[in-house]
Every structure is written in C-alpha cells, then in structure tokens.
C-alpha cells in the first residue's frame, strides 16, 4: 500500500538554513546537507529545500548546494524558490534534485508548466500554491504571500494539473505558523478533486493534526518546518502515532 509522506521543509539563504535546528549531536546547525541527512536517518520520506536568497549569484550557489545534498542524502528531495525558466530547472535537475517546485512564475506564465512537464516530465514538476481564505473563498497569493490575486486556489490548481504539474504543494497562509492545524477544507477540495498528489502545508502543531489531514482531508503528504526543526515533534514519534491510528506510513526504525 502506498504510504502517506512526511516532509520536513528547510529554508535556505545563501546556501545555509535560515533557522537553527534543535538536533542533538548536530555538527553544524546551519548546514542544509547535514540537516537533510539527519532527517533522512530519522525517517523523513522526502525533503523540500526552499531557496529564499535574492541575489544574482543564487543559481550557482544553489546548484552547488543541490549537488552536495544529492551526494549525501538517500531520499528524494525537491528544490524551490525563484525558479522561473526551463534553464533554471535544467541546472537544478542536472545537479541532482529529484523535483523542482514553481510558484509565482508559473502563475504569471502558465505555459511554463507545459514547457517544464514536456522537457523534464510531470513527475518532477511540483506546483506550489500559497492560498488565503477571505470573504468565503481560498485565493491564490503570489511573491511569498505578498500579492493577492482574484483566482481561487482550486481553479488555478486544476489548470496547472492540465498543463502538466505532477504534484501540488498547498500552503494555507491563514494556518501557517499558527500550529492550530492544517486547512482541512481546501486541502480536501484539492486532494479529492485533482488526479495528482497534494502535499498539505501550514498549521501543523500536534500529532493529531497530521492524522486529521490524512484521514479527513485525504492529503497524500504533509509538510512542516518549525515543529520538526525545534524538536516539538519527532518524525519517529509522528510515524508511530499515525501507524497506531491506522494510517499507512513507512516504518524505518
């Protein structure tokens, strides 16, 4: 049986993780390679590295980092942040990334999704959507949540899948950082309404929040950052909890 995936997300700036991570026996708290390797050892099913660097040197720094991650980490990983062309994607995949995620650039130029899926295959094209609930609907936001659009999230997700997106990474901005639980309604809407996997993101605070997002919202994967980084929830404990609740997960220890 296909298992539900648990995905830690690491924010990268200039080749280093932005927030420290509370691991014991970690040699270098800001090294994404070391952190990725430790998460893999703990049973993470995949990793996401989100590059928030805003310099022209970005692409080269990131490609070097991706190669170091690919050499050390033996589980799949996605790289996102500021990707806007097939050339960006080509560099990252050649460096060893398994998937890339696109967000604002794809919304501004949806044809990018057609191009990427044709050139590299849908399996490595993840569409990231930041969405916010306002006046009765979930709308797409761009530029890291700073720019509102009038497009409902489900609408955009469906068009993106038609254009070749192979997976949707859905971040609910209202929930993000609250640790009050995932946005179950919009996650369920996308997960049930689309033929591709949906990764839920934003709001995880307790073990039961993960149970809910898999059981009630039928997410295929769940992503979180700080609760893993600060040791509030450990991946082995989370997997044991999910398994006890009858949710299929990969056991590693």
């Amino acid at each position, binding site marked *: 049986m296909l*298992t539900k995936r648990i995905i830690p997300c690491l924010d990268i700036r200039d080749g280093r993780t932005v927030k420290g991570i509370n691991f014991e026996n970690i040699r270098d708290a800001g090294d994404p390679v070391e952190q990725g390797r430790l998460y893999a050892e703990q049973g993470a099913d995949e990793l996401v590295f989100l590059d928030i660097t805003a310099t022209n040197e970005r692409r080269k720094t990131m490609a070097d980092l991706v190669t170091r991650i690919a050499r050390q980490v033996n589980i799949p990983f996605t790289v996102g942040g500021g990707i806007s062309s097939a050339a960006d994607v080509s560099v990252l995949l050649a460096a060893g990334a398994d998937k890339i995620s696109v967000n604002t650039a794809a919304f501004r130029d949806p044809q990018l999704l057609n191009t990427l899926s044709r050139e590299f295959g849908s399996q490595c094209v993840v569409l990231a959507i930041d969405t916010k609930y306002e006046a009765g609907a979930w709308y797409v936001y761009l530029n890291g949540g700073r720019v509102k659009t009038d497009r409902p999230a489900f609408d955009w997700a469906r068009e993106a899948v038609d254009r070749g997106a192979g997976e949707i990474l859905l971040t609910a901005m209202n929930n993000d950082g609250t640790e009050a639980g995932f946005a179950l309604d919009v996650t369920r809407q996308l997960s049930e309404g689309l*033929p591709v996997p949906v990764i839920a993101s934003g709001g995880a605070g307790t073990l039961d929040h993960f149970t809910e997002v898999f059981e009630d919202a039928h997410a295929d994967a769940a992503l979180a950052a700080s609760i893993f980084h600060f040791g509030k929830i450990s991946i082995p404990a989370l997997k044991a909890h999910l398994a006890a609740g009858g949710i299929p997960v990969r056991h590693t220890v």
Partner: protein
Amino acid sequence: MNTVIIKYNAGNTQSVLYALERIGVSAVVTDEPEQIRGADKVIFPGVGEASTAMQYLRERGLDRLIPSLRQPVLGVCLGMQLLCRHSEENDTHCLGIFDLGVRRFPASSGKVPQIGWNMIYDLSSPLFEGIAERSYVYGVHSYYVEKSPFSIATTDYGLSYSAAISRDNFYAVQFHPEKSADVGQRILENFILKIN
C-alpha cells in the same frame, strides 16, 4: 570492478552515480558502446518518456547493444520498462529482453503517477539478500510491468505488479533504489557484490 551507468536522455543518472559513491563504488556514465560492453556491471537507469528514450537508444545503436550484453545488467524505473517488449506509453516498441507488456495504471488504482513509498514482497532473488519482506521503496511511475514468472518482487497499487524482474543476466526494478534510503542502498550493494 568496473561499473558503467548507461547515459541517455533520461534523468537520474547523476542520482545513481551518487548512490553508488555512497557505497564506495565509482562508476562511469557513458554511451560509448565499447565502454559499456567491457564493463563488469551495467546500470540502465531512466526517468522520462518511453518513445523518446527508445529513439535516443536507436540513434546510438544502444538498442542492439543492450540485449547483447552478457554481464549483469540492472534496469531502473523507465530502464526496466524499456527492457520489456512493448509499452502502452505512446505505443512504444521496446527492447524485448522480457516478453512482457508495460501498462498504464487504471484510474481505479489511485492517483497516477504513483508517487511515494510502497512495499515490496515475495522477494526471490539474491538482489534482495538481507532485505525484509514488505520493506518500503520509493517510486514514481504511471506505467507498470505486469506480473509474470520473471517477477522477483511484487508491489500492490490497486492491482499487483512486478516491482522487480530477472532473466539470465538481466535484472530490473521499478522503484528507485538510489532514492530508497538504506533498503535501496543494500539492493545496489547486492547488485554490485552478489550478482555475477
């Protein structure tokens, strides 16, 4: 030990190279027929689309070379599917080393492609020495190889399909050992060390 990864227009050759590096094996990525023919072990990886991949192989004569190899060969993902007779993906005539069909998952299986970690069972090959029944491996695929007497591992996704097959010196796995954590690492080690 001289291990070669066949280079073609399909992704993940780099990932396979790095996974081998992690177990202390240095491999060469090449599409040179002589170098491939002279290797002790050949890995035929693949992420991509079947007809485009077959066209690339034909243009370089690799479609004739690969079936003629006598040393152990390991197909991975699309590499496995290309070793079969025919793929439903764009109605592609493949290498035919295994007289098997490659089919698309029906919608009743679930979301397609299948992305993630699934179990392998009915393990029956030295390729899986030291691997527990129902271990988890990572895969990403829309097409599957049907069950047959060549099956050496099975996975269920709505239906049962061949997670791995073997015949003579040819071995193939549908999942990605290079991305399947310790389980995958052990499978690659077994291919390099136990298969002769």
